[in-house]
Each structure stands twice: as C-alpha cells, then as structure tokens.
C-alpha cells in the first residue's frame, strides 16, 4: 500500500512541539499580512499612473507583495521540513531542530 508511511519517512508528527507552535503562529501572521497586503484599500493606495522602472507601481506592488508572501511561505515550509528530518530521539531533550536553515530569524 503506497500511501502507508514507511519507517524512514519524514514524519510531520515528530516535529518538536515548540517548532510546531512557532510554525502555526507564523502561518497566521503571514496570512494576516497577506489579507492586509491584498486588501482593496491598500491596493488602491498604489493606484494612479506612476511608474517605477517603466512598470506601473500598482502591478509592481501586487506582484512584489505576492512574491514576498510566497518566499515567506517557503521559509516556513522549510522550517517544517528541517524539523521533520531531525532525528526523532525521544531521550535527548530537543531544544530546537539541529538544522537552522533560516538565517536571521527570531
């Protein structure tokens, strides 16, 4: 049965609870950021025919905000990935994942 987890699989359940809480908090934070960034009044701030590098500032803003959100989402997902792959030794107290791929966080 291919959809049964195999023993060596990275297991989302093995994530350190502290990391999981952080991931949850950041996910909500990012969602709120996205809601605000794409809310019509804020988008309307960039209305008008102003240009940056020849591109209307409205388009530049929307796509840039979108790209930033995707990038932050990727960072969160990589944090989860790193936590999933950390060894699941129950004996050793795990203060955090051994791999800390996110430079400059916290």
């Amino acid at each position: 049965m291919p959809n049964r987890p195999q023993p060596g699989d990275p297991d989302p359940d093995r994530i350190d609870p502290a990391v999981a809480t952080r991931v949850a908090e950041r996910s909500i934070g990012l969602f709120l950021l996205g809601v605000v960034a794409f809310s019509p009044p804020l988008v309307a701030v960039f209305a008008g025919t102003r240009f940056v590098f020849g591109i209307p500032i409205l388009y530049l803003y929307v796509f840039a905000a979108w790209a930033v959100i995707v990038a932050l989402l990727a960072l969160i997902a990589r944090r989860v990935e790193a936590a999933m792959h950390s060894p699941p030794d129950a004996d050793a107290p795990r203060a955090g994942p051994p791999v800390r791929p996110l430079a400059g966080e916290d």
Partner: protein
Amino acid sequence: MLQSWAVVVVSFAYLCLLFAIAYWGDARADRGRGVIGPYVYALSMAVYCTSWTYYGSVGRAAQDGIGFLPIYLGPTLAFVLWWFIIKKIIRISHRHRITSIADFISSRYGKSTLLSGLVTVIAVVAIMPYISLQLKAISTSFTVLIQYPEVTTPASLEPLPLLSDTALYVALILAAFTILFGTRHIDASEHHQGMVAAIAFESIIKLLAFLAVGVYATFVLHDGFGDVFAGAAGDPNRAPLLTVPDAGSYAQWMSMTVMAMAAIICLPRQFQVTVVENVRESHLTKAVWLFPLYLLAINIFVLPIAFTGLGMFADGSIDADTFVLTVPMAGGQEGLALFAFIGGLSAATGMVIVAAIALSTMVCNDLIMPVLLRTPWLKLDRRPDLSGLLLGIRRAAIVVVILLGYVYFRSIGDSYALVSIGLMSFAAAAQFAPAIIGGIFWRNATKAGAVTGIVLGFLIWLYVLFLPSLARSGWLPGGFVVHGAFGIELLRPYALFGLEGLDHMSHALLWTMLANIGAYIGVSLLTRQSALEHVQAVAFVDAFRQTRARPRLWRGTVTVANLLDLVGRYVGRDRAALVFYAYFRQRGGTLEPDRLADSPLVEFAERMLAGAIGGASARVVIASVVQGEALDLDKVMEILDEATQIREYSHRLEQKSRELEATTAELRAANERLKELDRLKDDFLATVSHELRTPLTSIRSFSEILSDNPDIDQDQRSEFLDIIIKESIRLTRLINQILDLAKLEAGRMDWQIADLDPAEVIGDSVAAVRGLLQECGVEPQVHLPPGLPPVVADRDRLIQVVVNLMSNAAKNAAGRVTVAAAARGDRLEVSVTDDGPGVPEALHEVIFEKFRQAGRSGAAKPTGTGLGLAICRQIVQHFGGRIWVENAPGGGARFCFTVPLAAEPAMAAQAE
C-alpha cells in the same frame, strides 16, 4: 504549417504523449517506485489553471486590468494556512481512506448517504458545465488556429460540423484516457500515479507555452515590460487598465478572493489532486510554496499579453479571450501559435481528466452504490464479485460526464451560461467550505446543520446565478430575471431582497454564504449529533491528537472467511486476500478462516471497503453482513453507560473496602489497648495482692507470736500490738484507696462539683494534716495571696488531693512544707513544696502511676501505699486540670496541680 491536419496531428501526438507518460508512471509505480514526489505533487495541483484561466485571464485583464488576480491570490492565501487546514484534511483522509470531497463531508457527518449524494449532485451540476467550457475552449482555439494566416474572432465563425469537430474526438480520447488511467484500481483512495504524472507534465507544458507567448509579446513585439506599459499608458483605451478599479469593485475583488480560497480546497478536482493523490504529508512542505509560485509565474505575462493584444487589435475585432493564440498568429509565429494552442489544450485536458475522475468516483461511490446497495431486489449481496460492477459504473460515469459536457457545449453554444460557468462553479464549490472547515474544527457541528446549510446555499446559488445564466442564454424565459419570480420585485435574482449595487458574483456569494453559514451554525446549535456522528466528529476534529485507538463500533459475529469474502466481492478476491494476509502478518497472527472476526478486523475491512466504495456505502455493506446490526451505536453508548456504572460500583466497593480497612485498624488498636489494659490489670492485681499481703503477713506473724507465746513480756507485747494496729490501719487505708481508685477509674465516683473558695479548702486541708505534720516534726507554711478567685471542683476530693500531697511532702521533708496558690490564666495553680531530697528527673512522669514510689536509697521501706499520687492525678484530671512534679529551687520536690477557675458570672456573684 497550421493546416488543420497538421494541428490535428500535433494535438493527437500530444495526447499520445500523455498516454505514454501515464503508462510509464503506472508501470513504474507497479514496480514499487512511485512517481509522485513533492514536485510532481505540486505541479499536479496546477490543474487549478484550466483553459478558462489560460485564455480567460488575458480576456479578463483586457477588460478590467488587475481584476483577474484574486483568482490566484485566494489560493495563495489559502495555502498560507496549509498548516491548519490542508494538512489536517489530508491526515483525516488518509486515515479514513477518503475517496472524494463528497466522501469527506459525508464521513464527517456520520457517514451520511444523504449528504454524500447531495454533495455529488451539486458537484455534477456545477462542474459538468465547466467540463463543457474546456471542450469549448479546445474547439474554439482549434477553429481560430486553423484560420491562419487570417486572424478572426471565433464569434464570427460558424461552428464546425459535429464530425469534424476536434473537441468531440478530444473528448472521446480524454474519456478513454481517464478510463484507462483513472480506474485502474478498484480502490479509489489508491493513487493514480500515471494520471498524476501526466497532469504534472501538462502543467509544465501550459506554463512553458504561456511564458513563451508572454516573452514573445514582451520582448519581441515590445522592448521589455517598460515598453509594453509605456505604450499602454499612451493609449486612452488601455490607460484606465493601469490603475486600480474604483471602490465599487472592492466587493468583487474580495468576493473573488474568498471564492478562490474556498475553491482551491473544495473544487472536486483540487480535492482529488491535493488530498486523494497525496502520497505523503511531507510532500506538502514543498508543494505549499511551489504551487503559489507556479501561480505567480503563470500570471506575470497576463497583462503584457493583454496590452499587446489590445494594441494589435485596437479595433476590437478580436475577442480578448483568444489573445494568447491570436497575438503569435498576428505576429506570424506559426510555431509559437501552435505551442500556445497545445498549452491551452493541456490546460483543458488536465482539468477534464481530473474532474472526470473525481466526479465519476463520487457518482459511483456516493450516489449510485448507496442506492444499489439499498435496493433489495438487485440482490447485490448475492453477487460473487462486485468489483467488475464498480469499475463498470465508474467507467460509464466518466463517459457520461465527459460526453454530457460535450453535448452541453454543443447545444448551449457560445452563450453566457457557458462563459460564466468558471466563476459560477467556484461559487458552487464554495458551498462545501462551511461544512468542511467547520467540520474539522467544530466538534458539535451536526449533520442536520451541514445538510441545511449546503441545501440552502445550493438553492440560492441555483436561483441567483445558474438559472439566470440559463435565462440569459435563452434556455429559460427571462422574465424572472428582470421582474423576479412570480413578479415579486424582491425576488429578482440579481438583486435579491433589494440588494443592489453589487456585481452578480459578490451578490451571490453574500446571499449563499449568509444562508449556508447561518443555517449550518444555527441548525447545528439546535440539533443533536447521533452517536456515530459524534464519533466521526471527534475523529475529524481531533485528527492530530488521536492515537490509532478508535472506538470499537462493531459487536457482531462474522467469521474471518465471511469478511474476506465480502471485501473480496468489492475489491477483488486476490487483492482482498493479499491485504488480509498482510493485516494478520503485521499483527503477528495467522489468518484462520473459521475464527470470529474481532472488532479491529471488522473496522479494517470497513476501511478497505471505504476506499473502494466510499464511507457511506461501506457502512451499509458491512452492516449487512456483520450480524446483530452491530453498529447500533446507541447500543455502544449503552454499553459505555454500563461500563460507567460498573466503574461507579467498583469505585464504591473500593471505598467500602477502604472504610473496612480503617475499621479493622481501629479494632486492632482497640484490641491492643485492651490487651495492654488486661496486662495492667494483671500487674495491678499482682501488685495489690502483694501490697495487701505485706501488712497481712506482718499482722499474722505478730498475732501468731503473741498467741504462741503467752508469757511474752509486757513491753514486747504492747510493741507487737502496736505494730499490728499500725499495719491494720495501713491495710485499711490501702483498701480504701484501692476502692477509691477503682471508683475513679470506673467513673463511678460521686462528684459534687461546685464553685469553691480555694483559700478555705487549702486551710481545711492544712488543718486536717496538722497532726501528722507535727508528728513528723514538720512546720507547714501557707502562702495564699488574698482574694483568690473561686475554682470549680468537688470539695472533698480537692481536700483529698491537697492532704495527700502534704502528707507525701511531710514524709519526705526535712523540716518544712510550703503550700502556695496563685491564679494563672483561667486556672488556679496550687503547689506543695518540701525541702527533702527531691524526686529524680527520670521519675517525674512515672511517679504518678500506681504503686510507683520514688524509692530512696537507704530507706528501708516506703511508708505510703503507692496509690496516693495516682488517685490525685485521677481527681485533678477529672477537674480538668494537670498535675506534675518539679524540682524546687534549693533542693526538694514541688508538686503542682491546676484547677479551672469558676466562670466570670460566678466570680461576679462571689464578689457581691
């Protein structure tokens, strides 16, 4: 190059490539090396981008600039919340072997057949026209393409005759593809590896094709983005598109975002690729950002293409929906135009394939099978093998769905109903969102609430979106659109209850969601869950907290062989046997056909069946064979209740036994005490008899001497008689004291408690012993402060205590005995001090016990009875006081005791 035969050949070659990829994928998966990795998984999600978005985004952008974006921003936002929603849905679906969105919703609400059928019907009504739209896009783009080098708008073209319509053949091929790669397994919760691989490939093709057209429009026809926008800004037609739409479209922007957020989870095809085809939860960590990135990438060139097209065909002769195709055609790029066509083809076919699989699974498992299983005269339970029937139904459903889509598009033509179905299907899918999101977070949401919400939402959707769209296409009389149903103004579908000023979509979303969410919450609050609903609700809401232990729902008698036979009928004998053997091997047992199946095995079988025929049907099937209508959950609850009661009893028993233990301990202690008392009594008797015998012996001895020697001289005789008298007195005193003590200890003493003046009592006592004191050559000294408060005691007994202490002191004193008294707190402390040798510290306690005397070294024999102090203690304790001995300063012993003072009123009375 763009002759129709060439286009046909290339298209068919492309479709053949799809077959090859799917075949390769399945073959690889059969060898145990699945093709669905995180990247393929993420790409397969891009089935979200259909031909409606491939061609339609540009068309929409040409109309209102940035207004097309919410369709893509919504999914991005929804994926930001993957940690809470998508991960949980996937976890639940894996555990329950969910096969479709209808299965998911019905499983959550007590495996309800009604709900699964309802969701299926809505999905078919909403999605089947969407499939038509894809086929139409193929047909239209083909028609436009083969006009090359002429560039014309499809509206001005005659529809192709049926037999030369590529779309028909494409539809047939797609049906074949879907049957081939979509129904390989009877278990619908298994992954369609080949199909997913093909979809991922299609996602790459459509992205590349769109990017190619975008690069061509931006960097070949123009000199980069700046040039595109500069040209647009100079054109009065295009310049308004560069700015944001006015405030009136805020609502549209937001409602489209919300609908797209719901759609990315609730569209059956998205549920299929995201949830059912998910192999590992961990793939999500890649997919959650790769998929939004894909959406971002495929939208970068939408505006440049739109502006380029608007600039090229400034006369408006060309439909903006075809710009992706017509811009390269107008630029003379045949190869690019063909590639763009293939991209559109891939977008359309991907959607058709996945939607057809999802819909056919739902139609088979959630609509037809439950009905068939409940139709007794079909005698389905007698059929030896039902897997063929299942596959047959699914395959037929695929053909019917796709061909119905084709017929719908051929008959309804280029009408509003078809063009607007994209967003309309989003709005319909959004009706599932409250039941799904509420279902995984709100434990008390009930089936009644979900059904009411979905039904109301769907009915309103029909009335405010679907029926008007049919009316506008001329399929229904249009009167109700303008004047409202039955001529009631308030019921105008586009301004329901007078709500005006919103676009149709926002208007529809507002009313459907208001009714849907309102009914869902309201009815859930007013109704109760059945037991099974409750069990499922807990399993869904606590998906992450739950361990593998699940409530045992089956309590029937069915043998392993019967169960195996049952599962085999639906999923195939060999496969069932294989899985059962694996099950037993995993548990370290062997398959014994004649054994009764235990509850976990029955549940395992139910899950197996659920994977094949859906949760609702699986329940019906299992219930038919597990005897004793095992899943009467109310019975389970009863058992639970019984268990609770038994626990209660056992709890009470425990308490009783604890009490018993305590009583036993008390008894044991009492017994110990009794034994101790018995021992004391024996000791006492022994001591008393000894003490009595001593004077008796001496009396008897001297009496015998006197009797045997009548000639004894007078002096000696009187001396002997004197001894006899003294010993008799001592004997009498001893007996009196023993009697006193016995009375005291037995509590039979007559007490005459009264308020007494201590000075008087002490004075009397001293007078009583004065003779004895003088005999001993001791001078009594009495120190009593004036005005001593009265005490509460028995006068005679109190005198007895003081006399006793004084005679004791007199016997030991060298020449002086002092009696003192003073009030201390609520007590009067009386002390009797002598100037004798004192009492050793070690004897301070024991001296008050019976027959214990402070034996003085050198002294021949104590003169007391050894009972006096014991009696004193008894009396003082009875008064509520305390007696003790301490060393007096300057040697000697000081015996002290306390007596409680009389209460205040008595004192006041005394003072008067």
